[in-house]
């Protein structure tokens, strides 16, 4: 398949996954902002999805509506849902003849939905959760449609590699930023709602309760988000899937290119697989997460070089 086509599928998929992550984060954090007695801060969320611009953070952090507007429909924000979906759609458009028509229509509808005036109006004055749900449903439609219409071949492999790479990076970012906040406010370490919201924002609260029955503890949260094989948003689950879908490219690859990347992925996978909460603690969580993220980026840039012909 064309290198450019492979790259477009990979990026399309990353953008969709990112939009899903942003929407779910916003939903839970908005709920949480309505819950907290003392002033709720959006700082970690803005940091994850828009970077460390302190001026921006200060301007937005205590204003839920402004954050929602900024992260969902702001044209100036390169990482707003609107811009991300536009990019996803441009990628899809450039490979339209490879995408099942149903899937293209899904994406197209997602794009047109974000642009509907009711979205902006709703974020401004109605119940934002209803609005975010409308958009989250669009992503789910997309995933469902992809699942049942995409041919089981190289395209799907590139899509899934992109999806899980993005997901792993997001879970790491969320964990890292949330833990970072504890340095500023040590009380959070024992604040149950804080952990509950973290887990909810990545859809892991129910699983946590089933797995650990003795209340919310920071160490258990780390274990679930990094090391739980059954948690679909855990780092290890995502990396296992990257490995799995990359493996399927083997027969359609140049042997040396394949080996090079396969080596990176395998090393990263083992590194996580043979870690424990304890060993992570020894390295330091932030260190560990930063290293893992660097390795993920390295996989991304090797794909770029060897498979997408952009060296």
């Amino acid at each position, binding site marked *: *398949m*064309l*290198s*450019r086509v*492979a790259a477009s599928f990979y990026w399309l998929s990353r953008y969709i996954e990112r939009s899903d992550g942003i929407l779910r984060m916003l939903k839970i954090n908005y709920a949480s902002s309505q819950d907290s007695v003392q002033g709720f801060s959006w700082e970690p969320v803005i940091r994850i999805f828009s970077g460390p611009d302190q001026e921006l953070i200060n301007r937005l952090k205590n204003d839920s509506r402004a954050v929602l507007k900024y992260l969902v429909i702001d*044209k100036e924000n390169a990482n707003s849902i609107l811009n991300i979906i536009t990019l996803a759609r*441009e990628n899809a*458009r*450039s*490979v*339209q*003849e490879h995408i099942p*028509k149903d899937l*293209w*229509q899904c994406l*197209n*509808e997602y794009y*047109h939905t974000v642009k509907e005036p009711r979205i902006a109006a709703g974020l401004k004055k109605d119940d934002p959760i209803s609005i975010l749900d409308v958009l989250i449903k669009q992503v789910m439609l997309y995933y469902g449609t992809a699942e049942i219409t995409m041919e089981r071949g*190289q395209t799907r492999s590139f899509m899934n590699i992109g999806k899980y790479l993005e997901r792993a990076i997001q879970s790491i970012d969320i964990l890292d930023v949330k833990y970072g906040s504890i340095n500023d406010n040590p009380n959070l370490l024992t604040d149950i709602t804080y952990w509950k919201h973290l887990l909810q924002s990545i859809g892991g609260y129910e699983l946590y309760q089933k797995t650990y029955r003795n209340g919310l503890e920071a160490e258990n949260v780390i274990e679930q988000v990094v090391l739980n094989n059954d948690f679909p948003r855990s780092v290890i689950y995502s990396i296992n899937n990257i490995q799995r879908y990359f493996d399927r*490219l083997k027969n*359609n*690859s*140049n042997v040396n290119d394949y080996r090079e990347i396969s080596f990176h992925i395998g090393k990263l996978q083992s590194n996580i697989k043979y870690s424990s909460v304890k060993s992570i603690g020894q390295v330091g969580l932030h260190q560990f997460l930063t290293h893992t993220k660097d390795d993920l980026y390295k996989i991304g840039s090797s794909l770029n070089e060897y*498979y*997408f*012909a952009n060296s």
Partner: protein
Amino acid sequence: MHSSQHFERYNLLNGVWDEMYAKNHLIRGHYQKVIDYLSQESPEDLSRKEELAKRLFMTQGITFTVYNSGEGIEKIFPFDIIPRIITAEEWAFIERGIKQRLTALNLFLKDIYHNQFIIKDGVVPIDIVYSCPHFLREMYQLNVPYDVYVHIAGIDLIRDYDGTFYVLEDNLRTPSGVSYMLENREITKRLFPDLLPNCNVRSVTEYPSILYKNLMSLSPRQMSNPTIVLLSPGIYNSAYFEHTTLARLMGVELVEGRDLVVNNHTVYMKTTTGLQQVDVIYRRVDDDFLDPLVFNPNSVLGVAGLMGAYRKGNVAIVNAIGNGVADDKATYIYVPDMIKYYLNEEPILKNVPTHRLSNADDREYVFKNINKMVIKKTNESGGYGMLMGHAASDEEINKYKQEILKDPRSFIAQPTISLSSAPCYIGGELQPRRIDLRPYALCGPDGIEIVPGGLTRVALTEGSLVVNSSQGGGSKDTWVLNPTTDQ
């Protein structure tokens, strides 16, 4: 019955051939079934259908993007829900005429790039050919597979006040719009359930498979599965939707210049597994941008070395390079002579009488009668650079005259033709609007095939004679009826 609502107020234009009505509100037989159908629909019903059509175009992404102040605004190509109907008899005539015309034009291209008998015999003046910027020396003595130069043609037809068909323009380079022919039909199926089979309308769905068959037959490597690609300038091109549609319908790879590379006079595409040889390129990139080593050196839309691979016969290019010399508006004047010269036949389809402004007598005549003339630049398309004499101010006319005098070769003049009208659903009622017709002809080693239909373009603005989409025109589904059901 709501019949009266739609049709009693339909005001025929004076002195204009209407596709639906003969005079005195006498309905032409082939429109009867559609009219019976529409009569049962209230204006609200029709408006709902109009809405549905818009929504379908939008959700399916059948749009083109207008880039304005850095922001892309997506628009749908305006679609009128009322079909335009062509009888089997009219179609048979059109088909014969186009085949004849294309056969001659194709022979002309071969001749012009080889022996140039037509020039030597004084049928086409030498200066017309040599002064044409689209006449490419690079094509001289170059043989193309099966001597086919024009693989895909869009011939623009209009009808005058008495219903006579005229050829307005031959499009022999990268004619576009065929995807709208296909999509308009799909939308019509959704809007008017059962109407198409009841009216016995011929299908247009064969187009992509005929095109694919032709492309495949051109492959220099005789193999069962040659690599065929559609070369597009990319997603910012206004016809990008069409490029993806065709690639999808044919199952061929849609590529951009940056996906291709030429090595040792062979074209390859860059894939995840390395380089893969390309055999046939259906290019939707203009000649000038195809190969920076030979043509425009600044172009990034094409591939360096492509012309060399083409010359060696290692890759087939569709349409052939250099076709512009045959659809130049100054060459157009000589097409009837070409038909007589190469085929020894009388032209079936007429040309619009055309004056060359480089000819002093013609020029004098045109300037005297400028109010009855349309003046066009020979090398512009899409309705750009035209002067409509009847609608222009004195100042505009004078300015245009100055321009003509500076470079008379680049202009032609034609009498204003009163394009035929067809009913359109506008503002909740049927109104006549001017139309033209672009059927698409496909030429391969086995001859010329024309899918029964085409793109009917509509001048949606009241009183306008310009149907080009770039000038605010729209389109209609175009029905060609089966012979058996003709009334």
